């Protein structure tokens, strides 16, 4: 039985004016903030901890626990909101910012109140003009109504929320690169460990970085209380999560489903969600958690949408982005396209990623173009091994006697972007090696290349 649909963060999407202060207030907006202000900051923090609110940005770290990592007595502390959504396949933070900016603002306020954060920077991806407009208007209205700024609702809680916007660079979504970018620099990640942003972040001060969807949950958690919140979802992954399902399904869309209990199969095949594969085709593979996640197949469909089992099975839920490929998909072409993304977006700070991702793209491109060499498949795996040494996370394939390699991958790089480029390579070669071999055998393509053979990627 599919768990019933509950809408905790997308509840206002049904209204055409969902983004206005009037609609927000008419439907319970800022009630979480009002309630929080009647509680002590510690009590609010404890409530969020008890709710086990897992981060929705990619890593899935519990927000309440992260807030506790700031060193005591070091001031100020900052909140940086990660609205840089750009992981391939991911589409939910933009919706939350465009359609319900007040819910996000309320979440920012609750986080600042509970964790003692003195200023908030709300970083929206540069390309998202409408989200920037909606959040700007919402902030102006919320300031005027007394929800944000000096002495919030007459209390001694004062905090500014500053709208900030980026300029096109995927890597800036990584939290330390986000901080660099917010300092006005090139968005290149900082080495961590030893220091995480919660200890040394923006301007060298303790900084909490949270994702838009994570923060959008806070108002509801405080209004309902953690006990009621935990009635939804599973014990270790309570609440709901937004999943964008794209590609070859009959009804692609962004669905809010109960976290941890709904399965991939339900989400992909149930009529209330995606309704199955298009045109009656068969599933070939799916990307379960954004471009950076190793691919899953038919065998993994019954896994719940929950971090731990998905990690054990060799991939990650990541950013809630599922890309479905049917049996008409060219595995080499799909792999090349995802790899090209990482090659383009590598910030260039470390060698294995800067050079390795470009080599992966070059080799895949020549295989795809029909000029591959027999040694190329091993070379791809070897380049991958330089970025991410040892067995790379992968799904099990019982028919071939292949066991799962659990997530996460190892890395020789500063941040996980480099290893992300290896995910499609290892996934596609492990499962569809004959497709690579067939393209390499076909390499008798002559010069000049006929137009229909030089398929552009």
């Amino acid at each position, binding site marked *: 039985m599919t768990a019933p649909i509950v809408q905790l963060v997308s509840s206002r999407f049904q209204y055409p004016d969902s983004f206005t202060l009037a609609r927000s207030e008419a439907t319970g907006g800022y009630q979480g903030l009002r309630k929080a202000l009647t509680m002590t900051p510690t009590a609010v923090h404890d409530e969020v901890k008890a709710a086990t609110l897992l981060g929705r940005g990619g890593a899935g770290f519990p927000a309440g626990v992260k807030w506790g990592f700031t060193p005591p007595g070091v001031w100020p502390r900052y909140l940086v909101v990660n609205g840089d959504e750009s992981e*391939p396949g991911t589409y939910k933070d933009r919706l939350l910012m465009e359609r319900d900016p007040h819910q996000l603002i309320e979440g920012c306020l609750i986080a600042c109140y509970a964790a003692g954060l003195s200023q908030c920077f709300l970083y929206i991806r540069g390309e998202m003009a409408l989200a920037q407009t909606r959040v*700007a208007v919402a902030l*102006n209205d919320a300031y005027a109504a007394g929800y944000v700024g000096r002495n919030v609702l007459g209390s001694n809680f004062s905090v500014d929320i500053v709208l900030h916007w980026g300029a096109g660079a995927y890597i800036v979504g990584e939290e330390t690169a986000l901080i660099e970018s917010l*300092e006005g620099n090139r968005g290149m990640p900082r080495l961590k460990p030893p220091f995480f942003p919660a200890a040394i972040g923006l*301007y060298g001060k303790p900084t909490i970085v949270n994702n838009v969807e994570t923060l959008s949950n806070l108002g509801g958690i405080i209004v309902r209380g953690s006990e009621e919140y935990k009635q939804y979802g599973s014990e270790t992954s309570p609440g709901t999560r937004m999943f*964008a399902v794209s590609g070859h399904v009959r009804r692609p869309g962004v669905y809010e489903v109960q976290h941890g209990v709904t399965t991939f199969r339900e989400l992909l095949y149930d009529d209330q969600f995606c309704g199955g594969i298009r045109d009656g085709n068969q599933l070939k593979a799916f990307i379960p958690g954004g471009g950076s996640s190793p691919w899953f197949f038919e065998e993994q469909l019954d896994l719940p949408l929950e971090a731990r089992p998905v990690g054990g099975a060799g991939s990650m839920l990541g950013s809630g982005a599922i890309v479905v490929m049917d049996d008409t998909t060219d595995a080499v*072409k799909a792999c090349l396209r995802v790899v090209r993304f990482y090659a383009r977006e590598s910030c260039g700070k470390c060698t294995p990623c800067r050079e390795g991702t470009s080599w992966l793209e070059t080799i895949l491109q020549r295989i795809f173009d029909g000029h591959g060499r027999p040694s190329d498949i091993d070379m791809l795996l070897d380049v991958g091994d330089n970025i991410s040494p040892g067995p790379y996370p992968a799904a099990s394939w019982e028919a071939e006697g292949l066991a799962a390699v659990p997530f996460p991958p190892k890395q020789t790089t500063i941040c996980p972007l480099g290893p992300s480029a290896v995910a499609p390579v290892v996934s596609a070669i492990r499962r569809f090696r004959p497709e690579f071999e067939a393209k390499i055998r076909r390499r008798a393509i002559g010069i000049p290349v006929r137009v229909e053979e030089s398929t552009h990627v």
Partner: protein
Amino acid sequence: MSRLTPQNEAIALEIISRYPRKKSALIPLLHLAQEQDGYVSDDAMRHLAELVEVTPAEVIGTCSFYEMFKREPVGTYLVNICTNIACQLLGAEELLHHAEHALGIKAGNTTSDGLFTIEDVECIAACTEAPCLTVNYRYFYKVDGGDFDAIVEDLRSGRQPTRKAAETGPDGHIPPHGTLALQRQHIPADRVAGNADPDSAPAPAWLEQP
């Protein structure tokens, strides 16, 4: 081209005032320069360096890292076609080829009348509406060749495109390249809490002190 106009300089100063350190305002200010001139000129970057008190080299260092900043003029309409995986699976490359043929330019180039630039871009967070594109960062969903032609035709003849336009401005208006948000944040003087100075901010007043 030019330094910021006095009007834009006033906006720049307001933006700068919201950050504890001036350099943090750099990316929003580069956008402001691009909104003014359609691209980021060398003179504008020198002006921004003065405003945020860094060297011009630091400004260009930041500017050159980010894809949205154009350091030479582009078309009035920047058409960004996503070809990343979800869109590729549903025909984005075919759409890109169609666009290239229809406008007679390869991705990355501008038509000779200066109206259109096409770019082959990465995921724009509309994956469930594939294939999709943006025109000056306004979204169009589930676009096919015919839709593309209609959009181009409308823009060429000075009409606002209605076909497949999702969430443009209030009047469906597509502003010229460089304009992002149609409204800016303003913090009223009587409501501002004030910047948290990294060097001297005290403990938050609302925390229970032990």
